[in-house]
């Protein structure tokens, strides 16, 4: 199996996000960058498939220089090589998906895995768009994946509200991973030491033939309003209950 895993580097979920001057971006100084947690499930699944069926796991990511660190981390987890689409431009999901699809098209992958969404912008666009650009089937929000290499088919279980949908499809295909698909492994020390020597090919949008025709522009960002201090009702429980109902109706306007 030749598997491509598409990863995005995002701010650590524990980062305190601040809006940068101009209200169109966030302050990136001092941010700890990590691999999008959903993409980690995709990497783990790719590595497990490779361990079962053999083949190769290639990781691709788009972004500035710092993204190389995320790619190296996947190599330390056991991926074979990386492709870094190096760009400092602010891109939208559409352009990123075009670039990733171009990388995927250049080599024939059997399977393309990624997270169901990135936890920074939560757009959940890239996986499906890549499937469209490559004209291959896709299953999103996958909790379980089985590969039938003999018949070149996949069985994927995806999460729906309150139920599980089982999808059977041929591959090549795009699969996006949901939490629960697996438990990502630790990088191993030998792989950490080897990661430096593994290949990370640097690509550019231009070399991939992508004109960054950005269709989505961030108009403004604002911090969520600060939560007002809680009001604590004390005294007689019956009176407090009446007061609570009154407040929920008149002040919070929720009943």
């Amino acid at each position, binding site marked *: 199996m030749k598997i491509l895993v598409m990863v995005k580097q995002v701010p650590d979920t524990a980062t305190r996000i601040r809006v940068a001057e101009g209200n169109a971006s966030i302050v990136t100084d001092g941010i700890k960058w990590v691999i999008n947690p959903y993409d980690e499930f995709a990497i783990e699944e790719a590595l497990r498939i490779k361990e079962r069926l053999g083949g190769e796991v290639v990781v691709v990511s788009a972004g500035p220089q710092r993204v190389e660190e995320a790619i190296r*981390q996947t190599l*330390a987890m056991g991926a074979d090589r990386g492709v870094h689409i190096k760009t400092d431009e602010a891109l939208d999901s559409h352009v990123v998906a075009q670039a990733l699809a171009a990388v995927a098209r250049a080599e024939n992958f059997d399977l393309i895995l990624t997270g169901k969404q990135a936890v920074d912008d939560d757009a959940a666009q890239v996986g499906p768009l890549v499937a469209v650009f490559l004209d291959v089937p896709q299953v999103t929000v996958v909790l379980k994946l089985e590969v039938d290499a003999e018949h070149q088919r996949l069985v994927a279980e995806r999460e729906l509200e309150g139920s599980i949908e089982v999808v059977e499809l041929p591959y090549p295909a795009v699969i996006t991973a949901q939490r629960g698909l697996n438990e990502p*492994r*630790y990088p191993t020390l030998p792989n950490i*030491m080897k990661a430096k020597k593994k290949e990370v090919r640097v690509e550019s949008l231009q070399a991939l033939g992508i004109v960054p025709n950005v269709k989505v522009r961030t108009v403004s960002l604002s911090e969520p309003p600060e939560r007002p201090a809680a009001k604590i009702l004390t005294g007689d429980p019956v009176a407090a209950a009446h007061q609570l109902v009154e407040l929920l109706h008149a002040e919070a306007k929720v009943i």
Partner: protein
Amino acid sequence: MDFSLGAEEKLIRDTVRDFVEREVMPLESEVLRNEREGRPGVSPHTLKVLQRKAKDIGFWGINTPEEYGGANLGSLATALAFVELGRTFVPFQFGGYADNILYSATPEQKERYLIPTIEGSRRSCFALTEPGAGSDAGNIRMTAVKDGKSWVLNGEKIFITNGNEADFAMVFAVTDPSKGAHGGVTCFLADRDMGWRSQPIRTMGEWDPGALVFEDVRVPEENILGQEGHGFDLAMRWIGAARWAIPARAIGAAERLLGMAIEHAKSRVTFGEPIANRQAIQWMIADCAVEIDAAKWMTFKAAWMADQGLDNRHQSSMAKLYGANMANQVVDRVLQIHGGMGYTKDLPIERWYREVRLFRIFDGTDEIQRYIIARNLIKGNVRLGED
């Protein structure tokens, strides 16, 4: 000058951090409970399971040479790993380690002592200190007298780390009283079943070193480690070989503790305001942060110097002295910020408080470190303004 870590070093740090958070920290309340009830915090079985889990991801023998299956990491990478291990008080260490001087063993001794120690099937202890000889190791009194094909050892050792658990001791004895430390001291590999006994010494911390008693213990002559009369050189090679490892652990502990104090200060409200708004608390937080940062760069520099093949003994002593004192200052302030809660056994602060006190004593007391540092400067071994 570049203060940033390499990609490899960052990955090692992040992986150990992840491992400690996911596998080791969850044991903390159990460890506290066990210790309170007089049992070892981590049972030998639990430790083995954890070490095996770490081994599965290659964290085993991290400083052990590759020909013995280790990863042979550099000093800086090791220091980074130790900082992460220091974030928890659970006494966990990666397996696959053997004392540096065991590598001086003969091929036959390696089979019996070095390799089983690396593999974890045998445990060693380094037995130099005596009631009348610590860092002044030249004063040891334990004697070894040749009798036929063996040596007969008599004397006492104290404060021996792992002395109660060890299967064998690397024990130092006077073999030629006329020669003094240089030439008169020899190191022996003495199995416990050759007849030495150990007794735990209760301490204010949670680990008990051992007192070792040798009464006419016969050690075969082939069990001399290194050469007869060269024991002092071996001892000096062991002492201080990784002195920077102590402040490395101290940094991890101090960062964890300061984090706890900041959280507490933000949530504890007095007179209508969180105590984090009080300058008295803020100053304590600031002083902790400054000292942690200073200790960190002193320690990383000492480790980095070792990786460059530079003589780092002066820097190591400074890092150990400062880092040990930093940890004591930080834990004291953190306890103070927690007020009464900090003094209870419900929180691990008091436990850390007792543990870090040792940092100022073992592997050379504060006073020995100061002596080394001052002597280097007075003798001109180290020149000011030239680093």
